[in-house]
């Protein structure tokens, strides 16, 4: 069991390190500049590992430069979602009116049709980076909040919290120094899951054409490939390689999460 966890951890970290490296120093991986043009629809060869696309960009270069965009949106929106989720989760575990309000908020967001809401809100709010990160975070905190809520309720009924109450510590003191440290492993696991969710949501949105076309993420690349007839041209790597990258990234986070999960 330990061995398989180690394998999962090493595999996940390797893939993740590769992508991080790609996003930090893309020049190591590709000799070309991001918008350098070559002949159109070149087949894969030694000089162009994945060929070129309809306007002559090297596909591999585009993937490498898309890594940082995808990473940035994925990680920042999941961090935001994590903070939001932790806050609302802890608040919803309170007794009384506040708890009810925030529990209701969680139930409400579980029911909302996420993707359709996101599309409509993105259309209204515009296509900026910040807007997209905020919107993805706005619909990404629900799962975190639910799990935090369940865990907090469990912790609150434990005897050491009771002990704190008997000693007369304040509510905020208990929440910050006694409940929060116990939530850290859950928060970390949720962060890894949250990155996956954000990357998936972002790619679905940009596949539908809601995104920055000049700085393409992987989802945008697939959208462009799809709209510009990569199917008919047989340029399947233009369609599939960004998708493979998305899957690998998601798998990497999943594997790390699996390896670091607490034994239950």
């Amino acid at each position: 069991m330990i061995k398989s966890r180690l394998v999962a951890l090493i595999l996940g970290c390797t893939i993740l390190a590769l992508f991080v490296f790609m996003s930090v120093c893309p020049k190591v991986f590709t000799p070309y500049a991001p918008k350098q043009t070559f002949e159109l629809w070149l087949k894969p060869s030694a000089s162009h590992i994945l060929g070129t696309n309809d306007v002559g960009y090297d596909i591999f270069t585009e993937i490498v430069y898309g890594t940082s965009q995808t990473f940035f949106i994925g990680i920042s929106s999941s961090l935001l979602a994590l903070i939001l989720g932790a806050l609302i989760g802890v608040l919803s575990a309170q007794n009384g009116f506040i708890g009810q309000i925030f529990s209701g908020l969680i139930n409400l967001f579980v029911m909302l049709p996420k993707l359709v809401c996101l599309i409509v809100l993105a259309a209204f709010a515009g296509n900026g980076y910040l807007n997209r990160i905020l919107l993805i975070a706005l619909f990404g905190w629900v799962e975190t909040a639910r799990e935090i809520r369940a865990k907090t309720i469990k912790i609150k009924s434990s005897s050491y919290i009771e002990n704190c109450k008997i000693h007369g510590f304040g509510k905020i003191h208990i929440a910050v120094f006694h409940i929060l440290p116990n939530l850290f492993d859950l928060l970390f696991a949720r962060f890894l899951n949250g990155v996956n969710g954000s990357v998936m949501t972002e790619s679905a949105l940009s596949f539908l054409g809601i995104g920055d076309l000049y700085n393409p993420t992987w989802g945008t690349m697939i959208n462009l490939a799809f709209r510009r007839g990569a199917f008919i041209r047989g340029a399947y790597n233009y369609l599939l390689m960004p998708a493979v990258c998305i899957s690998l990234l998601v798998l990497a986070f999943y594997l790390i999460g699996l390896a670091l999960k607490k034994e239950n």
Partner: protein
Amino acid sequence: MKKYLNNLITCVICFIFIVILNFALPRLMSGDPVAYLTGVDEESMSVVQYEYYRNALHLNDNIFVQFGYYIKSLFDGSLGYSYRMEATVSSLILSRIGATLQISLVAVVVSCGIALVWGLSAGSKKGTFDKISTTANVIINTLPSFTVGMLLIILFCFGVKIFPYSGLNSPNIEKGTAEYFFDRIYHLILPVTTLTVTFLPSRYLIVRNTARAVLNEKYLLFARQRGLGRRKIKYGYILGNVAQPFIAMVGMSVGASIGGSVVVENLFSIQGMGTLLTDAVYALDYPLMQGVLFVTAFIAVISIIITDVICILTDPKLRRARL
């Protein structure tokens, strides 16, 4: 019973939330609400046109009267007017919603069926079958829905040419004939498969994990000791524990399945509500977008209420409590 009552209240609040969101969005965003509500650029409008739109949209009245007009448009079934398409939003959505429901509802039913049978077989017995199928589902879970669709298109439309890759019907086939019906099913296979494969992992994992959690219960040990067959144990004893969370989750996921259908419709160029939504986004047709959001939320809420009723009807504890 209290849980379901709470659920019902949340449903109603969810619905009201969407209505208020729809009403508030064009009025809160920076910029003139006229531009948002008509989809026409402010600069390209003459003063007369602008005044006409302002009056037609009741933007000169106070906010509560405006809200009244909005509620009225929801109740008389028009859902607003799309100035871009020159038709009421409801007529546009009604002409497209059939295709979306055919894809998403069928996919929900099929994926639930497969997940239930597969998850029960994997969860009821520890071993290699469970390991392999769980790993497979975890890997499928990492694939975005459009990747699944593209793989299917590449395999079955360009590799082996047996399925069409776009549309819901071949041209030149008369509506209403048996041929039309079978042609429709033939066209639906790939989109439905795509959505089914995307939904399968989460459902499979829920069934499998719930089944695994009750596997060590004493009544199951007793059942096995009495020599009951595996099938009887699976469907007679474990299914009862899985049913409640599973049905509740299915109800929750209908709304998400319409979201998934947006992606699939774009991929397969199907004229459904999803493509209507993305077309509206490209054309900046805001009333149409809001209409689609409203209808989606409506379907989601209705499906949650229906599954709650099914939950109440199938829960033996609740059934007896009422009698």
